[in-house]
């Protein structure tokens, strides 16, 4: 192509077309973000408008009641906290150990591939199925108390574990092989290499995945329906085995009430749940930034 071609009207048109298409794409992308964010803003505005007046100490410290003005969210919040505690205690160590084993220790054999496929499928199983499983195994077979944070936590742990395994494996995979070689090269054993070098580097990614999995479990309603956590519970649970509700279930129950006064309660409970979710995501970001090692 000779030099003058770049100055021809044809070339100018071509460049103008290209610039227009770049601009078009930027606009479409911006539009997509604005559209999705505006729904979030709309949700927040409506909830704040309806619920903020109901957010007082009595609401935050009370438990469910048939009387809208007396009903509070503490019982469900405490139930959620206990349930999440059980979920975290079980799914985090199990998920991390499974991820480490699969990534670092498992022989590359056929049966390992089967396990990998199963775990990926497990993460995609609809949550109501986990609820049925929890009902069949923990309540009907093992005789654990219905509606309890213990069973709720166990059921949600089954759901959360595959998420932690998958994010954990990705985080472990992202640790450069040169670090493993360096450790092997001075005579570190496989376990030493994994726990002294690979795991600390993978931890931010694992924690982020864990918190995102936990946030999902916190908002989960369907599996808890199956294990009876939708009962009317007027006192906060005093242990892992006493009947309890959880926040999303409380929202579901109140939204079903005919009494108009519960609209405010529903919105206020949604605000509480959203605050928890945002706090967990915030912690995830904080931990990732704090522990991330650059090299």
């Amino acid at each position, binding site marked *: 192509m000779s030099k003058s071609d770049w100055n021809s009207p044809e070339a100018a048109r071509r460049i103008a077309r290209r610039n227009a298409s770049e601009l078009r794409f930027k606009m479409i992308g911006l539009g997509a973000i604005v559209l999705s964010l505006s729904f979030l803003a709309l949700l927040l505005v409506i909830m704040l408008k309806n619920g903020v007046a109901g957010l007082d100490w009595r609401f935050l410290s009370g438990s469910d009641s048939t009387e809208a003005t007396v009903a509070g969210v503490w019982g469900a919040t405490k139930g959620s906290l206990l349930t999440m505690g059980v979920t975290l205690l079980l799914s985090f160590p199990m998920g991390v150990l499974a991820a480490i084993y699969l990534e670092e220790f498992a*022989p*590359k054999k056929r049966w390992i591939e089967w396990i990998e496929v199963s775990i990926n499928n497990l993460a995609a199983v609809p949550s109501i199925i986990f609820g049925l499983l929890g009902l069949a195994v923990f309540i009907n077979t093992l005789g654990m108390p219905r509606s309890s944070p213990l069973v709720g936590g166990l059921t949600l742990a089954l759901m959360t574990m595959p998420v932690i395994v998958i994010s954990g494996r990705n985080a472990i995979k992202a640790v*450069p092989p*040169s*670090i*493993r*070689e*360096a*450790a*092997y*090269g*001075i*005579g*570190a*054993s496989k376990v*030493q290499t994994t726990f*002294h*070098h690979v795991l600390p*580097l993978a931890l931010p990614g694992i924690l982020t995945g864990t918190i995102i999995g936990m946030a999902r479990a916190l908002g989960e309603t369907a599996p808890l329906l199956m294990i009876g956590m939708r009962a009317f519970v007027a006192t906060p649970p005093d242990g892992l085995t006493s009947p309890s509700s959880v926040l999303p279930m409380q929202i579901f129950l109140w939204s079903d009430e005919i009494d108009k006064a519960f609209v405010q309660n529903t919105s206020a409970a949604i605000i509480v749940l959203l605050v928890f979710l945002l706090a967990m995501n915030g912690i995830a970001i904080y931990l990732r930034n704090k522990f991330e*090692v*650059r*090299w």
Partner: protein
Amino acid sequence: MTDTKLTARNVDVFYGQKKAINDVSIDIDNGIVTAFIGPSGCGKSTFLRTLNRMNDTIAGARVDGEILLDGENIYAASMDPVALRARVGMVFQKPNPFPKSIFENVAYGPRIHGLGSSKADMEQIVERALTKAGLWEEVKDRLTDAGTALSGGQQQRLCIARAIAVSPEVILMDEPCSALDPIATARIEELIDELKESFAIVIVTHSMQQAARVSQRTAFFHLGSLVEYGETDQIFTNPREVRTKDYITGRYG
């Protein structure tokens, strides 16, 4: 004075079905630098990695034949690969310090092997290793800084310090200067020359000039076989094999 440190007899290495090393026998002596040269893919790095069983960590790798360290078969069931790698240390192509402090980088090896129980012992081991690696003067005031914050050449000397901190008998170097600039390379080469007093050193290098500069013996590999092995002077001035001569005169590779 030289004596044999490592002996390889009829070594074959397979990656799955593929034969990467074919019937290599070689003696590696104490107190000198032995260089492995050859074109890319000739198997020199693969063979180097059989000497401390680094290939064990690769799925599907298999080694036939015998490799003796002081007369002891390193592939025998009684040989623990972890203990072996403490005796036969390794420095890699790309500097790979741990993302920890300079002190921790050097102290990690001695600590896991239980060398030096007290804090003072450990500080002494770290200082000695860094001094030997020619890095002490540059880093003595900032031992708590991240090892990854050093320059490339310093990082590689840190990796050498890390390797010598566990008092190995042999140090394997897999193209240790290929990621470094000429000045950093010269420092590492000086260092290799000093270290050969204390360790048997085997270096894989792409650069024939480097092999000529630092080594006393040179082995030329081609297509997975050891073509020629001898005194470095003889290999570079009077090669016996046509393939060696073609390679060192730049006909291929």
